[in-house]
């Protein structure tokens, strides 16, 4: 499937959508598909400091716990409270379900992330097609 053009992607299957100096973060459709039914999302508190590449929370399916990795460094400004009660929304629409919003400490970090085309290629290789 074509991945939305308005954002960048990580090899850990997160997406990050930038608007000036703030960004919105979620997980990709490939991630939700691999996980299966999502039953629990654990996000950091507002004000938490994130470091690019380090874990910031977890997403749990029935069978497993998966770490969430920060696509960029910065401070959490908002978390999606909806996901506490309806984690299955991430399965239904991963690209439309945001997990957190953050300010960016170092926007140039995004240069190292994958474009939608590169992410699509990466996913195709991972899936063994």
């Amino acid at each position, binding site marked *: 499937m074509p991945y939305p053009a308005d954002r960048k992607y990580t090899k850990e299957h997160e997406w990050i959508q930038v608007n000036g100096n703030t960004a919105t973060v979620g997980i990709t459709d490939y991630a939700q598909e691999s996980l299966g039914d999502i039953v629990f999302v654990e996000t950091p508190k507002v004000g938490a400091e994130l470091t690019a590449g380090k874990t910031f929370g977890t997403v*749990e399916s*029935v069978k497993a716990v998966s770490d969430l990795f920060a696509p960029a460094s910065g401070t959490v400004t908002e978390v999606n409270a909806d996901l506490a009660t309806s984690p299955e929304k991430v399965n239904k629409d991963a690209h439309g379900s945001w997990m957190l919003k953050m300010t960016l400490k170092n926007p140039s970090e995004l240069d190292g992330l994958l474009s939608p085309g590169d992410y699509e290629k990466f996913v195709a290789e991972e899936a*063994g097609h």
Partner: protein
Amino acid sequence: MSSVEAPTARKTALNGVHRQVGAKMVEFNGWDMPVEYPASIGGGIIKEHMAVRTGVGIFDVSHMGDIRLAGPQALAAVQHISMNDASKLAIGQAQYSALLYPQGTFVDDVIVHRLGEDEYLLVINAGTREKDFNWVRDNTRQFDCAVENLSDDFTQIAIQGPKGVDLLQKLTDADLSKVKFYWVTRGKLCGLPNILMGRTGYTAEDGFEIYVPADENTSARVWNEILAAGREFGVVPCGLGARNTLRLEGKLPLYGHEISDTINVWEAGLDRFCKMEKPEFIGREALEKAKAAGVKRTLVGSEMTDRGIARDGYKVQDESGREIGYVTSGSPAPFLKKNIALAYVPVEHSAVGTKVKVEIRGQGVEAVVVPTPFYKRPKKV
């Protein structure tokens, strides 16, 4: 999760069928097995679990093993290695039991079926196929009884749920209404003669397990005919993911978790399947001593009361945060819509209502001891 198979994983005869419909595959105890099926065919762990609780689901459980004991002293052999009392079995009757080590701990749990006058079939776990067969053979040499490993001879399919019997009845001439729970019958199934069908399962629901020839063509044909016949009941193929959540809700033990070679029968709470009135069986002496010494820890059910999911191996703490035990199996329960777990705790902390904590990523999250089984199927009216 990847659909690429582990190089040395074994495959059941239905492996191609699962892969062809796009099942997510996983390696389980050396077997390449479906963990869940695609949403496009009604799959997904939660949907599969709910299908079994409300309608019917089918499982490829051919990875399980089968040991046949037959001969003039077959009963004596079974009585020696099995903790339950097989002398109570009529022909066609089955019972849950376990094979024990001399220390009173578990070699494996097993369903013992009496198939004939002097013929018994032990259905055992996938991961313990070789170990169990060697154990049974080595510990029954003194009896006039042949011990055969039939594990590769059968494709075993479980048909489970309130509509399971109705589904199977469409495909067989055997009168299933005459077969009580934990009894078996033989009959023509999908045109195949003399097929063994047992009213057993691992889902805490009604249903059958059938044993058909293990060749790929027959196995695929039967599987697909079951799916076709089950369409009117909303049948869904189910993988190991739902198999685990279903058995957990029913407090059915899993080898390596609730039972193992370091856990004894009393700790596991399987007293009612252990017939100490039998004068002799492997493990009896140790169990008598253990009972006299007093059981120190016990298996309890727990439910999370705060946000979080207890999982296998997580530590259990008392209210003050002191470590007191561990989770043997923990998961969300799709039917009950709670996060449940089985855990070993000291007997002092085992009363229903006892508050405990589960350590989740360094934090103690609140939970409470609850009665088990978590789920019991409704009685048929």
